[in-house]
């Protein structure tokens, strides 16, 4: 499967752009995060890395599909 992933904040710097395509066997949020950790070890140095699916924070066991809007959410610092 090929997932399009949006990147924000520090993850945009680490991935080298606002959007990336991740190839992956699995279909869960956890599998996607592991794949990203392999490909971009710098992500493991963050305080946290949440993943949003369709504009909502997702649980690790959530199943994703190629048509979902997926985004990397490093530690937020708004306000």
């Amino acid at each position, binding site marked *: 499967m090929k997932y399009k992933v949006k990147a*924000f*904040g520090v993850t945009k710097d680490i991935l080298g752009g606002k959007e990336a395509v991740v190839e992956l066997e699995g279909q869960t949020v956890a599998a996607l995060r592991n794949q990203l950790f392999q490909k971009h070890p710098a992500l493991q140095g963050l305080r946290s890395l949440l993943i949003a699916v369709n*504009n*909502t924070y997702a649980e690790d066991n959530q199943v994703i599909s190629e048509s979902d809007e997926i985004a990397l959410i490093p530690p937020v*610092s*708004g306000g």
Partner: protein
Amino acid sequence: MIKITEKPIDVQKVIDTASSLGAGAVNVFIGTVRNNANGKNVVWLEYEAYETMAVNEIRKIIDDASHRWPLLGWAVSHRIGTLKPGEVSVVVAVASPHRRESFEACQYIIDTLKANAPIWKKEVFEDGEEWVSARPAMAVN
């Protein structure tokens, strides 16, 4: 009103949007860019938002607050882009019949917004830059 905007925030307009004839109290929180962080001079800040999700998350926060307190009006505006020290980054305004609820609801909204809304800031110093709170060793705030 929930607004994510690159333009300077008109604080009075946010307050007016929240105000209500039945309200006796409006509490307003204004976040401003400090000219220093961890003892270093801040030259400017870069704010970035995942806009559609940020609006979603802020709406959930407002819904929660509306269930917990008798809100008569509210408005949230968050700036993105490049901000200099002294500029307003966020305004939360909440109107309620009495004052205690307005303080509690406003504080709940800004606290939860800061914890949950997908918005990020990068501090730009004279000698470097840094995404705030991104890495453990650099945790601030």
